[in-house]
């Protein structure tokens, strides 16, 4: 058994190790070391908790058993999950953090003596506020992440679900939670505590259903942030430094990622949260107009010919590449091009895919060296000096309308200057507009060649034609 002061110092150490874990991610070289720091911090926190309780009874055996069960499940998932399923895995993990926060808050509410928070029916006021905020945010994180998970997994349609009065309902429920917490503090009633949790679950669902598929990068980052604030709330209740530091780190991390994603779409955070973007599909007469415009379409042979004769090619991957799992075929194609002394680089838009950094992970999985992969601002000037842009599964992030038409819903969004390339190859299944529901004028440019096919199939065909 160690003293509370010594335990607090160890918790501080583990908090610092967590900071170093995030610090390591500033470069891929140091990132692996960072992850070990994180693991070390976690081990310290868990061991210190055991030592500070000093209750080595049969309960401890059960705690270890449950720890091992959970650990085995987690390890199994971590090794089995395909890289393309990473967005839904992260959403799923967020939901677990949220639910764990709710359960810890419930346990603390039912047995406050164990946490030194007072007695049942007479819990310290500050602790009660902290634990109910922790529980409420945890519950929102849980149910919100479940909805995000279902949408990403495709079990639930990615289309936004909206109904009239939605925002007012959310507002009322949100205020309701605060009012109930106020009464909870006055009455210490168990029923009110349960009601707060149930309403929070409902709010989580209502918050995420109106948000469409391509806004998922924001949603995931936002839920990441919430899971941090929930952990911090519980950290205050437990008076645990490691948990407070971690909660603050994760909370701000998620908030920054949400900000970066919103900025990359030139949309305000509020408008993403209110949802419904891309809900109204373009009307029929608009579609007819599109069909009349001439489009040059080609096949794998044409594409292979164009690229073989180029001296530099820039690849622009998007969500379509992830869906088709085309990253390995793409890598093969690039290897062939490099053998012909063609310079190949990758250009990644911050919101390409369904979560921050989604494309980078997929390319890394296909063994693409990370120093060939560039972010928007680092590569955008290179398009003008390149021969071919190979757009695979991306659409809105290349649409020049964002620069030219102030009326367009994506006006002002930073886009990749693909049109400046001498020629553009567009791998796409059809001419359908992207998520924003707007037409991409790039399709109709003279130097654009559309390759209508599944991204993986087309890339494989091009590989064959490159021989």
């Amino acid at each position, binding site marked *: 058994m160690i003293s509370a002061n010594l335990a607090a110092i160890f918790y501080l150490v583990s908090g610092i190790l967590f900071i170093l874990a995030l610090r390591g991610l500033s470069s891929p070289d140091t*990132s692996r070391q960072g992850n070990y720091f994180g693991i070390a911090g976690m081990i310290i926190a868990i061991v210190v908790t055991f030592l500070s309780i000093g209750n080595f009874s049969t309960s401890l055996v059960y705690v270890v058993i449950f720890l091992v069960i959970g650990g085995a499940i987690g390890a199994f998932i*971590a090794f089995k999950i395909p890289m393309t399923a990473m967005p839904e895995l992260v959403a799923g993990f967020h939901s677990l*953090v949220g639910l*764990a926060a709710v359960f810890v808050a419930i346990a603390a509410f039912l047995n406050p003596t164990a946490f030194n928070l007072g007695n049942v029916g007479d819990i310290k006021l500050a602790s009660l506020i902290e634990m109910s905020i922790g529980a409420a945010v945890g519950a929102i994180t849980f149910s919100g992440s479940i909805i995000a998970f279902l949408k990403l997994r495709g079990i639930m349609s990615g289309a936004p679900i909206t109904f009239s009065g939605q925002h007012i309902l959310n507002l009322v429920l949100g205020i309701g939670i605060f009012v109930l917490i106020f009464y909870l503090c006055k009455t210490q009633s168990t029923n009110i505590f349960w009601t707060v949790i149930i309403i929070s679950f409902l709010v989580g669902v209502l918050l995420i259903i109106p948000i469409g598929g391509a806004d998922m990068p924001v949603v*995931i980052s936002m839920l990441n942030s919430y899971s941090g604030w929930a952990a911090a709330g519980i950290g205050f209740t437990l008076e645990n430094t490691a948990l407070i530091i971690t909660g603050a780190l*994760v909370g701000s991390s998620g908030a920054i990622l949400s900000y970066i994603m919103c900025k990359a779409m030139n949309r305000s955070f509020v408008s993403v949260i209110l949802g419904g973007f891309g809900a109204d599909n373009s009307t029929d007469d608009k579609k007819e107009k599109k069909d009349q415009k001439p489009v040059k379409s080609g096949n794998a042979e044409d594409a292979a010919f164009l690229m073989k004769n180029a001296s530099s090619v820039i690849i622009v991957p998007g969500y379509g590449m992830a869906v088709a799992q085309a990253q390995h075929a793409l890598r093969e194609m690039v290897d062939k091009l490099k053998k012909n002394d063609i310079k190949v680089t990758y250009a990644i838009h911050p919101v390409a895919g369904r979560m921050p950094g989604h494309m980078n992970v997929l390319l890394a999985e296909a063994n693409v060296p990370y120093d060939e992969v560039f972010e928007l601002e680092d590569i955008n000037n290179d398009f003008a000096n390149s021969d071919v842009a190979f757009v695979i599964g991306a659409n809105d992030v290349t649409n020049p309308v964002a620069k030219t038409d102030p009326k367009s819903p994506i006006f002002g969004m930073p886009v990749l200057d693909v049109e400046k390339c001498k020629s553009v190859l567009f791998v796409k299944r059809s001419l359908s507009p992207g998520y924003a529901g707007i037409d991409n004028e790039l399709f109709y440019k003279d130097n654009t060649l559309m390759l209508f096919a599944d991204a993986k199939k087309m890339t494989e065909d091009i590989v064959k034609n490159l021989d």
Partner: protein
Amino acid sequence: MEIDPFIFRLSIFVLSIFIGYYVVWSVTPSLHTPLMSVTNAISSVIIVGAIIAALAGSSESIFNTSSIFGFIAIILAAINIFGGFLVTQRMLQMYKKKKDKKK
């Protein structure tokens, strides 16, 4: 007048938000996915609360209402800790430089 210990915790919290702000801005965008999975893993340090709750049961009743919530929370957090760190490790192993590839 004595300062409430809550204020000290609040100070730690606020300063940590600032640390988080600067540290996360320095994370390279290509590692944003591992960032999310590792933040997931570390926020599961909430397991310390779950352990306290689970161990609060007396020797006669290891499983009472409060400790059962603790035990379930241990499983949930453990899934996250192991899953989060291992999947991050798996992802980070894939990030390689050009020269490594040619070996």
